[in-house]
């Protein structure tokens, strides 16, 4: 596929703006740009075809099953797109007087109230732009809490070894030392190890529940009590909230602060990597530290400040509010149940087809297969299987995560898939398992139907080419 720069021809373009109707106002020479940026010079017709070609080489939830574990790739209702495009939302300046933006404020207020209900938290901020941003924000609330109490020796954040990489990374960004807590063979946090790790330096524990292997931490009450008893606070990573919303609330489990991924749990689209929204909820004890905006308002005297400009990834919240209103008081739980049911059904089908689960029994909204044995027997890796799925028109599950499972494949079908989609996926995966055993080479060679074969990632990282080289163009 041509790059847009390769489509460029000198002098091409579109007539977008009227000619100037005021006198020119030349810039001081010291600030005048010498050479124009080499942006593409293309007509609208070429832009249209270019991005159409790009779209033809992309794969969205619209294109098929997308069981990417830990990412909650649910269907995004079209209504949300319509509402986020309303001129009464898109045309509002973030620094308009408050009395002229009451509708926007209400969107945040209503979504906040509903999410507090769902999480059992007392307050909610929508400032964080994504999950990791929410983690960082939530950890700063914990930090501010300890600092304001003069409890400055609390510098350690405990993180299970199965946690998402963002958890330790966020803790480090917030200035904490990370202490890893091992998992048991069952896939749960080792309670004794947790107890041993807690102490006077404990600032808090970060936890996903259900955890990343798809299991509900059934000792959760003991865990939050252990941390609280040690003087720490407990952070809920909402990445997996989709499994339990309406069923159990982090606030009721003893969590003090949480973030939610609106772009996962609340059905706002992922956009090829963003924008998301990492709303953060907290108990009253942390509310004084919530962020505000220097120009946009909010934030009290003890506020941590702010983590981005203005109010929120607002249009994402509009979509989430639409989804929340659609689910309503009964649908929140039904969606969660549907997600867990679908995951268990697919897990059951795949186990029956001969795959090995990393952890037996019922799962929550996702589950992890281990291809360790298969790889030993046939040489076919989790990567091979994932690439072979591409040829079947499915997006693969998450590969090689969590790190505690070898040759891991992590499936999260979500509640918005139909039974027949799950059945078809199971059948396709059963067939691939047969192929793995009979003709492993075929899987090493996959994918074969895609626009490129497997790319050389090592070469890409070793000598990075991260921008177009016009010399060669």
């Amino acid at each position, binding site marked *: 596929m041509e790059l847009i720069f390769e489509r460029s021809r000198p002098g091409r373009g579109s007539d977008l703006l009227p000619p100037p109707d005021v006198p020119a106002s030349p810039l001081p020479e010291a600030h005048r740009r010498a050479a124009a940026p080499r942006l593409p010079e293309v007509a609208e017709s070429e832009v249209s075809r270019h991005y159409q070609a790009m779209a033809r080489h992309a794969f969205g939830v619209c294109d098929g099953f997308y069981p990417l574990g830990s990412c909650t790739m649910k269907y995004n209702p079209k209504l949300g797109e319509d509402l986020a495009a309303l001129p009464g939302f898109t045309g509002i300046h973030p620094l308009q007087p408050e009395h002229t933006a009451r509708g926007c404020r209400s969107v945040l207020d209503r979504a906040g109230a*509903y999410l507090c209900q769902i999480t059992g938290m007392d307050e909610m901020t929508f400032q964080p732009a994504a999950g990791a941003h929410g983690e960082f924000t939530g950890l700063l609330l914990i930090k501010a809490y300890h600092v304001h109490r003069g409890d400055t020796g609390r510098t350690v954040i405990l993180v299970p070894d199965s946690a998402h990489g963002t958890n330790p990374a966020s803790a480090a960004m917030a200035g904490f030392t990370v202490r890893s807590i091992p998992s048991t063979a069952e896939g749960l946090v080792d309670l004794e190890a947790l107890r041993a790790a807690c102490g006077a330096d404990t600032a808090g524990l970060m936890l996903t529940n259900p955890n990343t292997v798809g299991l509900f931490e059934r000792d959760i009450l003991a865990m939050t009590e252990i941390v609280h008893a040690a003087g720490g606070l407990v952070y809920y990573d909402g990445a997996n909230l989709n499994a339990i919303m309406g069923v159990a609330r982090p606030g009721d489990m003893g969590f003090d602060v949480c973030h939610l991924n609106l772009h996962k749990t609340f059905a706002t689209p992922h956009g090829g990597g963003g924008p998301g929204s990492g709303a953060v909820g907290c108990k009253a004890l942390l509310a004084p530290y919530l962020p505000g905006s220097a120009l946009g308002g909010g934030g009290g005297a003890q506020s941590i400040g702010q983590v981005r400009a203005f109010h929120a990834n607002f249009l994402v919240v509009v979509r989430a509010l639409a989804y929340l209103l659609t689910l309503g008081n009964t*649908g929140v739980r039904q969606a969660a149940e549907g997600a867990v049911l679908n995951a268990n059904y697919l897990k059951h089908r795949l186990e029956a087809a001969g795959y090995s689960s990393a952890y037996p029994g*019922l799962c929550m909204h996702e589950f992890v297969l281990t291809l360790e044995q298969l790889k030993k027997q046939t040489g076919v890796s989790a990567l091979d299987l994932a690439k072979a799925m591409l040829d079947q028109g499915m997006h693969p599950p998450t590969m090689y995560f969590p790190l505690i499972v070898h040759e891991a494949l992590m499936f999260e079908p979500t509640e918005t898939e139909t039974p027949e989609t799950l059945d078809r996926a199971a059948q396709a995966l059963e067939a691939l398992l047969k192929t793995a055993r009979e003709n492993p080479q075929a899987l090493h060679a996959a994918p074969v139907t895609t626009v490129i074969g497997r790319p050389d990632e090592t070469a890409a990282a070793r000598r990075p080419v991260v921008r177009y080289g016009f010399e060669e163009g």
Partner: protein
Amino acid sequence: MGSFLPSTAAERAGLYAALGLSGPADLYADVPASVRVGGALELPAPMSELEVRRTLEALSGQNTRFSTILRGAGAYDHYIPAAVGRIAAKEEFVTAYTPYQAEISQGILQSIFEFQTMICELTGMDAANASVYDGASAAAEALAMCRDRKRTRAVISGAAHPDVIATIRTYCFGSGMELAVAPVRDGVTDLTGLLDETTACVYVQHPNFYGQLEDCSELAGAAHGAGAKLILGVNPATLGVLRAPADYGADIAVGEGQPLGLPLAWGGPYLGFMAATAPLMRKLPGRIVGETVDAQGKRAFVLTMQAREQHIRREKASSNVCSNEALCALTASIYLSLLGPEGLRQVGEQSCAKAHYLAGALCALPGVSLRFPGPFFHEFVTELPRAPQVLAALEAKGILGGLPVEGGLLWCVTEKCSRSELDEAVAIVKEVLG
């Protein structure tokens, strides 16, 4: 119900049966009874699509849409060509995840590679990332790139956007990086006496919050003289005509990409961009797309340098950023493709010219004057009597006037405003000032 669960109750009963379960309660055996939610949540009853639409439309109707917007301060009302929204709305772009599976994601990956290239071209830098959350967090992340064992202190301009300054402060509260805010003299940054051997970097916004053009070359010299890096925060809509940050000597350029085709949207989602010179490339946070080949030697694009990232490096990662503003970056790419160098030049020149036209007309009114003496781009501060009444009178006519800041009103004009709109605004101000 159907809108969020495609399966029917009967189908779900079939799945439960296949699993040997009697119903939903069986799924949650591990959840302690004491934390199970008893009844329904305190949310409204489920709504049909028509009801949800009515509800949100009513909320949007509670906002005032100004027909003329003379306010910027970090969010800019530029013209967005029709093709931008129509192309960015393609379902494949909207509903894809991060392009981990390169073979089915070449379109997404290539478009990010193109975005990175465009940002490099605008800023004059060697490398750019795939975006971060917004301009403020981009600035904060840039500071972290510069910190090392010996240099733990940052100096930032007091003439930067207040939200950016506050965001940097908050990030530094997390990281423990020391921070000094340089004073503003005559509307521009004064670094005198602030730089030393512990200074990792200097952050300056250009044009700054007050619209003033900073003497970036001198600032770069000062920073580099102290062994520090210069980070410039820039408005990309100015870069069709203003010097590229690299040409001023900046090491890192960051900014808010909203002016590139994103709607005001009450502040988000916006688009943080980050670009750097080659030596700093591997310190950039977030996703980066690189070019490579597949086994047949065919050009291919992949997420690259992932060893920097949190899913590999965990607590040692350069940042925790993973989700970014990909669709906004795509939107900006489409916008820049449609405008091209000539269109972006027009945007810059017309915005600048119209701002100067407005400034001239306002300052011809009694009691109105420019607050700062230096050259400005498309924002400026006026000292102006009876500002609240002026703003109210403008609002009554559907015009959003300048933002009240210390010492005056901060006005902004973009290419979208016509001369007659500006004349109308000036006439209203004149009437209030009598």
